[in-house]
């Protein structure tokens, strides 16, 4: 009896050593929830509320308008180009940084972060200065009939620049932690470079890759600053969804602006759900493994 009491006391002591009084717990929780509600949930709710404020018909009209559809198409095209390119770049950069030693490695790591450090507007300006009519390559491009600034290529390039670090940043620590031993083992067993990559490296980082892709996609669809500078705001031609929203809003067409914004918000919510699924999948994969180690110990004793 005394031992069970002791156990209970011990458990109680352990619980109290890591738990704060109720008012502190509820206080902290309340602050966090209030903050989240005020800055995240209310704005999103307002977007949808405003979008439908003038009824479903107005909403559908605003969303189904040719210019809105063109903006949606351009946004999707941009993401469809930017995400795969950044995926390949991210994989290559992370692979090189995590698995090889070379001079200029730390410079490369710093450079990858550059787009995060620079304001997107400045990024856009840089491309205007490079490819614009009076830019460095402007005359050459003009002579060859190529148009980058105020056209889709410019939007793609600017978006690519801004989202460049996302996949690589996700993968570098992951690949670093995995080290090179498994790859060495694969090679010593006779695997070639591609076999090693697809059979050993990629499966180990697949959740990280997916996570990076989701983040990259979200940013590619939502980017405003850099794209705004290079786009030229030609309605129905070089307008992406965020730019279209801004135009509508500036024209005091707030119902339409919020309707289109709700499309973006919906894309963001889909992204969040996908991210959540990936996280739980990656997590449950790990959990499944730890849960069965108990089983393993039992069998060891046989």
């Amino acid at each position, binding site marked *: 009896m005394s031992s069970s009491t002791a156990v209970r006391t011990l458990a109680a002591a352990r619980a109290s050593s890591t738990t704060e009084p109720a008012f502190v717990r509820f206080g902290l929780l309340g602050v966090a929830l209030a903050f989240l509600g005020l800055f995240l949930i209310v704005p999103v709710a307002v977007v949808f509320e405003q979008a439908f404020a003038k009824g479903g018909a107005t909403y559908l009209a605003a969303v189904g308008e040719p210019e809105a559809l063109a903006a949606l198409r351009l946004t999707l095209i941009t993401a469809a180009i930017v995400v795969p390119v950044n995926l390949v770049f991210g994989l290559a950069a992370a692979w090189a940084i995590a698995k090889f030693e070379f001079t200029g490695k730390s410079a490369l790591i710093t450079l990858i972060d550059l787009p995060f450090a620079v304001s997107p507007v400045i990024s856009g300006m840089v491309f205007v200065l490079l490819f614009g009519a009076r830019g460095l390559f402007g005359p050459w491009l003009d002579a060859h009939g190529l148009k980058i600034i105020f056209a889709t290529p410019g939007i793609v390039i600017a978006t690519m620049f801004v989202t460049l670090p996302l996949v690589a940043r996700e993968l570098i620590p992951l690949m670093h932690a995995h080290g090179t*031993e*498994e790859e060495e083992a694969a*090679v*010593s*067993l*006779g*695997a070639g470079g591609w076999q090693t990559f697809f*059979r050993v490296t990629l499966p*180990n980082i697949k959740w990280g890759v997916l996570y990076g892709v989701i983040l990259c996609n979200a940013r590619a669809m939502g980017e405003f600053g850099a794209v705004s500078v290079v786009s030229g705001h030609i309605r129905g031609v070089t307008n992406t969804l965020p730019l279209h929203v801004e135009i509508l809003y500036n024209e005091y067409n707030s119902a339409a602006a919020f309707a289109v914004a709700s499309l973006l918000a919906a894309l963001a919510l889909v992204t969040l759900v996908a991210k959540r699924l990936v996280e739980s999948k990656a997590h449950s994969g790990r959990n499944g493994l730890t849960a069965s180690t108990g089983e393993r110990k039992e069998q060891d004793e046989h």
Partner: protein
Amino acid sequence: MSIEARGITKTFGTFTALQDVSLHVPTGELVALLGPSGSGKTTLLRIIAGLEIPDAGAVLFDGEDATGRNVRDRRVGFVFQHYALFRHMTVFDNVAFGLRVRPRPVRPSRQGIRDRVMDLLKLVQLDWLSDRYPTQLSGGQRQRVALARALAVEPRVLLLDEPFGALDARVRQELRRWLRRLHDDLHITGVFVTHDQEEALEVADRVVVMNHGRAVQVGTPEEVYHHPASPFVYHFLGKVNLFHGRVEDGQVFVGEIAMGLPGDAAPDAAEAKVYVRPHHFDIDRKPNGRGHFRARVVHINPAGPQVKVEVLTEWGEMAHVDLPEERYRTLGLGKGDEVYVSLKEERVFIET
């Protein structure tokens, strides 16, 4: 297949990992590369495997230069220190990997792969775990999976990096006997790296003792243990007591005690290092006519086959003495006793 390394040199930045190391492993022999960490033993193993490229020197397999040959073409089985099992694959898939990545013309059939993998898993006594993942296995089991995986590609050479380094003492002992038996059955040329002298002496046919990027002695376990070529080897192979002495009249004096004669004549006043293994001491209650010194018992640890006695010598140094249990009982030693310690065997190195 025989392995030969000729004049291998390897540096990492300013650190010289290997300096002009040569090594010959005859077909079918199991050789241990033994040395402290940083001695270059793992680098040498990785160079033999082709995972590292030497700055100078050559690696020959069966007399044929393989230095420029790619890892995948060398047909070496490499067992990594931390096993490097593919964590997203089952035990079966891990072992099958080397067969599945073969080009189609030389790849065994699905059934062929299955049979070979199950045979190997039986060999390492793990066929009942074939659908487990590496994280679900114990250290010893992972080690054996790594070995089966390396053997699956029918390597001509088996290279093992600290094969038992990460295992606990009991599993270690079992596994190393098992490895020795396996080697005797398969007759495959093998090289393994270890920092554990007991392991090297027990498992290997020959031992290469390495220090500071050089092979300081090569020989059978018996040779290196009983005839160490240098103070380092003596020190590294087993416990040893070291006394500093000086030479006078062809004798080595430690304090005021003549401790033995060095093999060769040495000039007076030369510095001498006297090495004595703990079990080469004897303890008496009274002087028995042999050369001896006086000492006081400081600590006794009677647990184990040998009783470990720590004594403080009359010149103020600690010495570790191993006594057979019987002898200890006959003497009836106790802490603080004054005793006479004599030497049954010692090794003197004269510093030049």
